[in-house]
């Protein structure tokens, strides 16, 4: 039994013009203590997929289908009350803009204490002790609990967000671009911290990012999303060394490798499709350089390339 299992998750956004098919037939699996990277470019549906798990979606979103289970327990039909509990104790989220996620007029420590008192029903004294402990875990001087968010640097604020996310000992932490707005050095520090916490607390982690290297450095498995669908998934090393889908291959080729030769890779021609009216067949076919007959007609099915490494491309079926 996996820690988290997602089957056929489909979420649409309703607009005046119709439905944006942001995320379709997404299947994910996460084991205890495992880190899964969900990569894709902007608007590929990675955040939608992750937020659908805890129904933290805008009002115009509709989760059309999908079964989500945590340790075998189906939560896809959970009501708001239960979701609220799930959101802190089972699935916690670290958001991208740590600058905006903290309340600027309240002391940093109090914001964590409040969360603990509400969700863990802890008495105030105990909650304060726990907050100090959490600060130590994320490597901030516990004496700084009485400071305000503006007194913290960007990296420190992101650490506070991480402390808040792990406050109620969740089973799964979802990081939505947790290092994107940070400096390279701070980014490396934060990634190292996340890795340390994952090991210590045995949490499952889903990292949503557009940065392949973040996945390469920290995740056990990777799922590549394009235009609302997962096109390839598997153990990180396998996918990066032998990418099976043309899109993954192009993405990896576009990544500058300082150990190799200096050359500017070809960019993928065109733009991602409009998801209000996605193209028939494989959603990548309009930009793909190896297009064959069925690409523009039929949806490709996932093919197992090697153990645990799946890709959805018509070319693979032919081999």
């Amino acid at each position, binding site marked *: 039994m996996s820690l988290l299992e997602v089957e056929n998750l489909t979420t649409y956004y309703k607009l005046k013009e119709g439905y944006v098919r942001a995320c379709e037939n997404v299947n994910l699996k996460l084991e205890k203590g495992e880190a899964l990277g969900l990569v894709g470019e902007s608007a590929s549906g990675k955040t939608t997929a992750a937020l659908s798990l805890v129904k933290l979606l805008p009002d115009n979103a509709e989760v059309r289908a999908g079964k989500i289970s945590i340790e075998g327990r189906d939560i896809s039909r959970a009501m708001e009350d239960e979701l609220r509990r799930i959101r802190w104790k089972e699935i916690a989220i670290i958001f991208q803009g740590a600058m905006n996620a903290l309340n600027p007029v309240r002391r940093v420590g109090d914001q964590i204490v409040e969360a603990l008192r509400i969700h863990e029903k802890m008495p105030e004294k105990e909650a304060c002790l726990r907050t100090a402990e959490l600060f130590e875990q994320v490597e901030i001087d516990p004496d700084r609990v009485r400071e305000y968010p503006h007194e913290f640097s960007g990296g420190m604020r992101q650490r506070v967000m991480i402390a808040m996310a792990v406050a109620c000992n969740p089973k799964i932490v979802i990081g939505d671009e947790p290092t994107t707005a940070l*400096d390279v050095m701070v980014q490396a520090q934060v990634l190292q911290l996340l890795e340390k916490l994952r090991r210590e607390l045995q949490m499952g982690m889903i990292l949503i990012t557009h940065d392949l290297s973040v996945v390469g450095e920290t995740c056990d498995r990777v799922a590549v999303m394009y235009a609302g669908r997962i096109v390839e998934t598997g153990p990180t090393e396998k996918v990066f060394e032998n990418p099976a889908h043309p899109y993954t291959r192009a993405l990896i080729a576009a990544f500058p490798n300082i150990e190799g030769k200096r050359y500017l*890779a070809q960019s993928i021609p065109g733009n991602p499709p409009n998801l209000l009216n996605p193209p028939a067949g494989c959603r990548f076919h309009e930009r793909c350089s190896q297009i064959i007959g069925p690409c523009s007609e039929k949806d490709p099915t996932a093919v197992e390339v090697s153990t645990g490494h799946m890709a959805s491309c018509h070319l693979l079926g032919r081999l």
Partner: protein
Amino acid sequence: MDINNRGDEQLELLKVSNLEVHFAARQGFLSSLLNKQPKQVRAVDGLDFSIRKGEILCLAGESGSGKTTTGKAILRLVEPTGGEVCFKGEDVIAFNRQRLRRFRQEAQIIFQDPYESLNPRQTVFSTVAEPLEVNRICKNNEQIEERVIEALTDAGLSNPQELFLRYPHELSGGQRQRLAIAGALVVKPDFIMADEPVSMLDLSIRAGILKLMVDLRDQKGISYLFITHDLSLAWLVSDRIAIMYLGKIVELGSADTVIRQPLHPYTRALVSVIPVLKRVMPSDKKLLQGETPDPVNIPTGCRFHPRCPEAQSRCREEEPLYREVMPGHYGACHFI
């Protein structure tokens, strides 16, 4: 990729010597009542470098290192408080209004975020045509249209006429950045300062924009000051890289040597955290503790010493000289 004729003054397009930009830090009400001297923010604190014709020089460093302020000071969008900037042998600091106006055609900027730097209510045509109209470059509308088409084509936008009446929100991210580049190209500049031109773009679109920048250099001889925090990008496109830390250049050299044989401990740390597509042993990374200090209180001696893994007592007291360590490779550290 290296330009020959090193040191040939004729080829030097831009020369910056001892450039300084100091700001007065904002004071609290109480300290202003007490008549305290405002503290100085030493954003740029003595830089020396030059850019040759057709060269791409990259300024790299963490946020707060003064990269953008340097770029702005060169174009006099921020007034330098000291030092010299020479453009084609002329002193930029001494330019009067008229000459400055002309200088700002010769030297253009591309900003990081094409979503913010473009006016959402201006069509593609008027965005690109505006610099021509403001500077009265063209005699008639036909000429304007010709130049606009040329700039859009040069920026890699095919079928420019079809785009004329579109608004920025109708374009994709990559197209928007190309539009911003067209706006810079239309006045035929010799020099472009590109401030993080691709950091808002997706990986698959990035390569195209970078390639465009390099192609423009190759075809039109445009020189660039390329500002980025991403060392792998710096290495990919630039001829030389200058690493900045707290308002000073700590190392400068050809792109390959700075990345492959870094001299300064700060560069070595930055290079060790360049993202790669494989699992890196945490011990291989030379993670620096803490973050860049506040430029109001710059540490004594070598400004990097509080974070330097190799700091010794000398570093606390004595500021290292910025000197040529090997031909064309400069550094500022006591132990190189």
